[in-house]
């Protein structure tokens, strides 16, 4: 049973008609049941590892692809730039979940059989690519025209100018917005659960269905906090670290 079938069912709530807890003991037994937690901890850890691996892949491919597109855009080939702008706008306007569902349910009709991991990876990378391109491009255009001209006139080639003069300045400007955006998009790994990717949320919710106890959900929530809270705090630090430059 996929994640989607489990919750996108209007009779879902009927199963809870008689579950009303009154005392704290019952509450703790329901939400922090150590026996249930111990049983499903290995599953949650599996999900955690998969989420970390997927998130790392998305960050690397998404940012690399975004940087590549921004560099290509700086070449100034008109038709190519229109295409890049269209692709970037498309993936900024579409909700990531729509991209995932479209690829997952659309590709089989085109003759491909995608798996959940590849689909989630590709979708989130495309979305991150679009946002990263936009941010890198804004950084590149923020470097004054005169710097390009000065570098080129000292005999540097186009690529040398881009690589040693423009990008170092541009990337410094882009770090705070890029960090925030990257964190927001990596959290989207949870969306993979909708198409059956066995990451944290998916593991937790199937454990919950099997044990009829929400304790695995608490474990899953803790796993997400362990993963993302340090990243959010790091992001906050990076923001203040680069803010005095303003």
């Amino acid at each position, binding site marked *: 049973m996929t994640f989607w079938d489990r919750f*996108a069912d209007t009779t879902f709530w009927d199963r809870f008609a008689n579950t009303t807890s009154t005392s704290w003991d019952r509450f703790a037994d329901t939400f922090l049941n150590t026996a249930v937690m111990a049983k499903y901890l290995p599953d949650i850890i599996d999900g955690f590892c998969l989420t970390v691996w997927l998130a790392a892949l998305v960050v690397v491919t998404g940012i690399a692809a975004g940087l590549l597109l921004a560099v290509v855009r700086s070449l100034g080939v008109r038709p190519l730039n229109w295409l890049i702008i269209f692709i970037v706008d498309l993936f900024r*306007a579409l909700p990531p979940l*729509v991209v995932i569902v479209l690829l997952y349910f659309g590709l089989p009709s085109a003759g491909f059989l995608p798996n959940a991991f590849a689909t989630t990876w590709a979708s989130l990378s495309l979305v991150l690519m679009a946002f990263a391109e936009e941010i890198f491009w804004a950084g590149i255009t923020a470097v004054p025209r005169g710097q390009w001209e000065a570098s080129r006139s000292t005999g540097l080639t186009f690529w040398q100018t881009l690589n040693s003069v423009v990008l170092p300045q541009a990337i410094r400007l882009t770090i705070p917005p890029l960090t925030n955006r990257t964190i927001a998009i990596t959290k989207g790994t949870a969306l993979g659960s909708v198409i059956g990717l066995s990451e944290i949320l998916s593991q937790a919710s199937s454990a919950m269905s099997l044990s009829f106890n929400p304790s695995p959900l608490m474990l899953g929530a803790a796993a997400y906090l362990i993963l993302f809270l340090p990243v959010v705090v790091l992001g906050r630090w990076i923001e203040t670290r680069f803010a005095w430059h303003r």
Partner: protein
Amino acid sequence: MIDTFFNTGIIVAAWPILLQGLLTTVELSLLVVPLGVVGGAAIAVLSTVRHPWVRWPLIAWVDFFRAFPPLVLLIFLYAGLPFAGLQIGAFGCVAIGFFLNTGAYYGEILRAGIESVPAGQNEAARSTGLSRLQTMAFVVLPQAVRNVLPDLVSNTLEVVKLTSIASVVALPELLYQARQAQSVTYNPTPIVAVAFIYFLLLWPVVRLLSRLENRAIAGRR
């Protein structure tokens, strides 16, 4: 190929339910955006209080909900609350989840905005006899909002896009309706159509944003 992805017959047949989905998405956005803005404004105004007993819980609150993926929060509410004896329905869960999640984001943005307004403005307004609340409402907040307008628009765009996760808890918005139509017709056309609807609806906002953001990054130097 065209028959598979752009089947006009299916689009015509599915159009009424997609339109209903669009209406629900719009309604949902009109509910959760103001909810988030109000929650965010409360957080931002509270964060001007420098007392550590206010400051640190507030930072913890904001970081907590920024670290929690929205879908996880939604499932947590939807599947966890019944065990606590609370049945507030899919709509209630979505409203609470979005309030918590987007409120934290709006709060962070508005806080940055308030901090960008020079302290002299606050002092001048207070010395003319305006109360603390009046100063905040009529002097500081309007300037704060103007200073962080690109971020506010960008976050609102993200919130509207995020309403698509409500499909997971069977709220009949655009994506949910498309999935229903797709599973009846065994054809991905409805999903393609919904992607088109999202794109047409949000493209103008994306265009506006890339102008505003380019200006903002260029201005940071």
